[in-house]
C-alpha cells in the first residue's frame, strides 16, 4: 500500500510537466478560435478576456463571402485533391513495384528519399519558375500540382513501401495461379489489404499540399487563382490589418488540418522507429 503511494507520488512531476506542455500546445488553437467569434470592438478593447461576451459570425461571413476567401479555399481544395490523386496512383504502383520486383532498390530507398529531402525547396524554385514561365504554367493549377508532386511522391513512395511489404506473397501467388494479371493482383488483392495505409498517405499528402506556401507564392499571383495560404498572406499585406477576418480565415484552415492530422497520427511516426530506416 505504502509503496503504491510512493510510486504514484513519484509520477507527479511527470503529470505536472505534461499539464504545462499541454496548455502551451493547445493555447494558440483555443485562443484563435475564441478570438474569431469576438466582435471587432471586443478584440480591440479586451485583449486578455478568454470567452467572447457576445458571439458573432461576422468575421466569418466577411472573410469568406465579402473578401472572397471562399474561392481561394476552393482553389486549395482543387489543387490539393489533384495532387493527392496523382500522388497516390503514381506512388502506389511505384511502391508495389519496388517491393515485388526490385526489393534491393527498396533497401536503399530511404537513402534516396533522404537525399531528395535535402534539396532545398528554394533551390528547386528557380528552375521551376523558369520552366513554368516558358510552358505558360504560371497562374495555373496544373503548374502548382506539378511542383507539389516533387515533394509528395518521394515521401508517399516511402510510406507505401512499408505498407506493401506487409502483404503476404502467398495470397498474390494464389491469385496469379487463377490467372489474374500483375496489375489486377495489385489493384484487387494487394491494395485493398493496405487500404488504411493508402488512406493515411493520401490524407498526409492532402494536408501538406493544402498547406504549402512557397511554391504557391512564387507561381500564382492572380488573386482569383490563389490557394488559401497565399490569399491570406496577401490579405495580411493590406494597409490596415483586419485581425478578425484573418483569425476567422485561420480557423477555417487550421481546424480541418488538426482534425485529419490527429486521425492519421499513428501512421506517420511508424517508419522511423520500427526499423524501416537503415
Amino acid at each position, binding site marked *: 500500500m505504502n509503496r503504491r503511494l510512493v510510486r504514484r507520488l513519484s509520477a507527479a512531476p511527470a503529470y505536472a510537466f505534461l499539464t504545462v506542455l499541454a496548455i502551451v500546445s493547445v493555447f494558440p488553437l483555443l485562443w*484563435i478560435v475564441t478570438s474569431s467569434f469576438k466582435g471587432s470592438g471586443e478584440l480591440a478593447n479586451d485583449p486578455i478576456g478568454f470567452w467572447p461576451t457576445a458571439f458573432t459570425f461576422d468575421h466569418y461571413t466577411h472573410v469568406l463571402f465579402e473578401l472572397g476567401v471562399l474561392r481561394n479555399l476552393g482553389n486549395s481544395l482543387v489543387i490539393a485533391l489533384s495532387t493527392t490523386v496523382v500522388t497516390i496512383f503514381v506512388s502506389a504502383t511505384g511502391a508495389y513495384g519496388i517491393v515485388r520486383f526490385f526489393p534491393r532498390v527498396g533497401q536503399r530507398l530511404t537513402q534516396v528519399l533522404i537525399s531528395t529531402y535535402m*534539396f532545398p525547396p528554394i533551390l528547386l524554385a528557380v528552375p521551376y519558375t523558369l520552366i513554368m514561365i516558358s510552358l505558360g504554367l504560371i497562374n495555373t493549377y496544373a503548374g502548382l500540382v506539378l511542383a507539389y508532386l516533387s515533394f509528395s511522391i518521394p515521401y508517399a513512395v516511402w510510406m507505401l513501401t512499408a505498407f506493401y511489404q506487409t502483404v503476404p506473397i502467398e495470397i498474390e501467388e494464389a491469385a496469379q495461379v487463377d490467372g489474374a494479371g500483375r496489375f489486377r493482383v495489385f489493384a484487387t488483392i494487394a491494395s485493398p489489404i493496405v487500404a488504411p495505409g493508402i488512406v493515411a498517405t493520401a490524407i498526409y499528402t492532402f494536408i501538406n499540399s493544402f498547406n504549402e506556401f512557397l511554391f504557391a507564392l512564387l507561381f500564382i499571383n492572380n488573386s482569383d487563382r490563389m490557394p488559401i495560404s497565399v490569399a491570406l498572406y496577401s490579405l495580411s499585406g493590406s494597409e490596415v490589418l483586419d485581425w478578425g477576418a*484573418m483569425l476567422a480565415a485561420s480557423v477555417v484552415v487550421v481546424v480541418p488540418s488538426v482534425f485529419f492530422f490527429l486521425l492519421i497520427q499513428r501512421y506517420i511516426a511508424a517508419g522511423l522507429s520500427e526499423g524501416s530506416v537503415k
Partner: protein
Amino acid sequence: MHTRTHNITRLLFVLPSMLVVVSLLLYPVLSSIYFSLTNRHLLRSDAEFIGIQNFLDVLASPEFWAAFQTSIRWTVVSIAGQLLIGFLAAIALNRIRHLTGLFRTLLIIPWAFPAIVIAFGWRWILNDVYGFLPNLLTGFGLTERNVSFLSNPDTVFWVVVGINVWFGSPLFMVNILAALKTVPKEQFEAATVDGASGWQRFIYITVPHVKKVVGLLVILRSIWVFNNFELLFLLTGGGPAGLTTTLPIFAYRTGWGLQQLGVASAITVLLLVFLLVLASLAFRLLNHWDRKDAS
C-alpha cells in the same frame, strides 16, 4: 517472349515514380547548378555564361555570411530546444499510467498547424497592441509597457526559436516515445535490483536504445529547419533589420526581389553543398554507432 512482357510490366509499375524523381528533382537540381554559372535574370530569357563569378560575388558579400550565420544559429538552437522538450515529454508520457492518450493528442496539435496559421496565430498572441501575452505581462506589472516581441531586436530571435520549438517538439516526442517502447522492461528491473540509480539507468539502458532514432531525427529535422522558408518569412519577413534573414529568405530576395536568378541559384547551390557535406558526416557518425553496437 513471356519473360519479355513480364519485364515490361515490372518496369511500367515503377516508371512513373522514377520519371517524377528524375524530371522534378534531378533535372531541376542540375539546371540550378547551370543557372548559378550564368547571369540569368528573372524576366529576361537571354543569359550569358559567366563562370564562377556569382559564387565569388556571393562569397564576398557580408549579407550572405550574415544570413548563413543566422541560418546556423536558428537551426542549432531550434533543434536543441525541440530535442530537449520532445525527449522530456516522451519520458514523461512513458512514465505516467493515466490520461496517456489525452496528453499525447493534446501535445501533438502544434505539429498539425499550417505555416500560415502558426504565423498569424502567434502574431496575434504577440501583437503589441491587441495581443494576449504583451497585455498579460503589462497587466501583471512584469513589463512597463507592451513589448513588441517580433520587432524588438533583443527578443525576436528567442521568440521565433520558441515558436519553432513549440511547433517541432511533438515530432521528436512521438518518435522518441515509439523508441522508448522498445526498451526491454527486464533490463530496467534487473538494473534496479543491482542498485543502479535513475540517472545510470537512463545513460546505460535508455540512451543506447533511442540514440539511433534521435540521431536520425536530428539530421532530418535539421535539414528541414535549415531549408525552411515560410516560417520566418511569415513571422518576421526576415526582419527586424535582417536579424532573422536566413539563407532561403536571402535567396528569395535576391532571386525574386532583385530578380537575379543566377545569383540566387549560386546561393541555393552553396546551401545544398553545405547540407550534403554536413549530412554525409552525420550519417557516417550514425553508421559508426551502428557498427559499434553490432560488434
